């Protein structure tokens, strides 16, 4: 490799450093003593058992999961529609429309949360489910848009043009050519929104009411005062769910591509 050795070594050093807090949380969640002092060699699942038994926590985890799935379910179709229609726009407008659509990503989480709180309050939905779903959809939408856009390659355009040249209407082209070839990107963007929603701590705090508290919100309170074992469990569960989701989809997509290639197809 062509970088000076000091740069490489420090890079590795930092990379390992980055993982330490995560490893600590993982470890702490399995620690047997209640003070969560590390290092510990006494392993126990007691905190996980407590977690499941305490409705405040287990319900929050469940809500997080639901919210993440629904947000992904809404954000991805919207993003696909937006990405698809963006292609039809003339060059100069495209730039501005894209900028407009990516706005939520540029606003800081707190400002976004505050603004959405106002909106929810104004329509009388403060702290309700539509509010949470809407907020997370908004949060995930820019990323979903960027990911789906990557799927609209020039080769896809060529295939669509070929189909149109063979006489297919644009709706047929979209349904039988575009969508089937786009699906890995759709899956990737869904996973992205899912993970973003699951991990969101900032907007959720502003937007959740007592009925819709997600896991980060509940963990939040504990983090502020004295991080107890439940937080470690919550953190580990979120981490595992996110990584697991990403890992499973990556493996699945890779496996499917591999099978397609060996069967003579190309994607």
């Amino acid at each position, binding site marked *: 490799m062509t970088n000076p050795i000091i740069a490489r070594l420090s890079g590795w050093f930092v990379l390992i450093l*980055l993982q330490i807090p*995560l490893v600590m949380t993982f470890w*702490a969640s399995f620690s047997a003593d209640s003070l969560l002092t590390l290092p510990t060699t006494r392993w126990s699942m007691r905190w996980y058992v407590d977690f499941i038994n305490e409705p405040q926590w287990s319900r929050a985890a469940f809500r997080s999961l639901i919210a993440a799935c629904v947000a992904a379910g809404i954000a991805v179709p919207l993003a696909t529609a937006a990405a698809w229609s963006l292609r039809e726009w003339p060059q100069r407008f495209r730039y501005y429309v894209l900028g*407009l659509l990516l706005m939520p990503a540029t606003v800081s989480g707190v400002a976004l949360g505050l603004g*959405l709180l106002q909106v929810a309050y104004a329509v009388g939905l403060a702290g309700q489910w539509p509010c949470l779903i809407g907020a997370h959809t*908004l949060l995930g939408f820019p990323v979903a848009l960027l990911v789906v856009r990557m799927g609209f390659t020039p080769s896809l355009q060529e295939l669509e043009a070929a189909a149109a040249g063979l006489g297919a209407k644009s709706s047929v082209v979209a349904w039988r050519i575009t969508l089937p070839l786009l699906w890995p990107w759709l899956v990737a963007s869904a996973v992205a929104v899912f993970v973003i929603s699951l991990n969101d701590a900032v907007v959720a*705090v502003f937007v959740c009411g007592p009925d819709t508290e997600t896991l980060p919100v509940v963990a939040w309170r504990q983090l502020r005062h004295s991080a107890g074992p439940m937080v470690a469990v919550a953190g580990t569960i*979120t981490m595992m769910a996110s990584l697991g989701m990403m890992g499973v989809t990556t493996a699945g997509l890779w496996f499917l591509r591999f099978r397609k290639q060996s069967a003579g197809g190309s994607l």
Partner: protein
Amino acid sequence: MTLLRASIAILLPALLLVVGGTAAGAILTVRMSLHAPGAGAGLFEPGSVSLSSWASMGDAHHRGIVLTTILTGLGVSLLSTAIGALLAMLAAPFAGLRFMGVMVLILAPRLSGVLASLFGLQRLLPRGWIGSLIAETWLLVPYSTLILVIALRGIDPHLVPAARGLGASRWQVLRWIIWPLSLPAVALTLQLGWVWGFGAFLGPLFLGGPDQSTLAVEIHHEAFDLGRWPRAAAEGVVLMVLTASAMAAGSWRPRP
């Protein structure tokens, strides 16, 4: 022409959601800041118009908070760009599966473990400036690294062997080839670091003391702990203005 019109129609829901959510939120926040404070336990006085919240924006307390916000933003931006550059140099040469592996390691703290990271960081770092800055940088490093990795991989791969073959040492290659060609990306990373850094929230909140309160922390405090929505809204407007000017200032950066 009908395709264009159809595509506009398809675009509409997304546009509505995004613009509606963010713009409406911004507008309502401004409106909220102009309300009078709520009497008794109320959050605000509905229908009122008052500049009292804005009046208090100029006091020493708020000036201090704005200063802290700006300092945090600058510090976080510099740190995350520097560390991101180091990690990007590490990750960029890898290919295929190994590249993905390294990228996952880099993105893990942000993608999967905001909660987990904060929990761990709280135990590792002392509260105060160190804790606040490092924690917030922690959360931003994955993004800076991503931008810089993409930029590095966009450089013609033959340039480095050519330079080495002409006798340049590794440091010379870095300084004369890689650095100039990644300048636009570095500028972008610094700028985005500012923008995100001004909104610093989780770091200062969980690992900072009262002196490290940024605007975002203060907003949360006002809105939820003290229940004074007009003041929270006014602070929110200040934050939005600060963020917007950081983005605007970025238009003077070197273009690729």
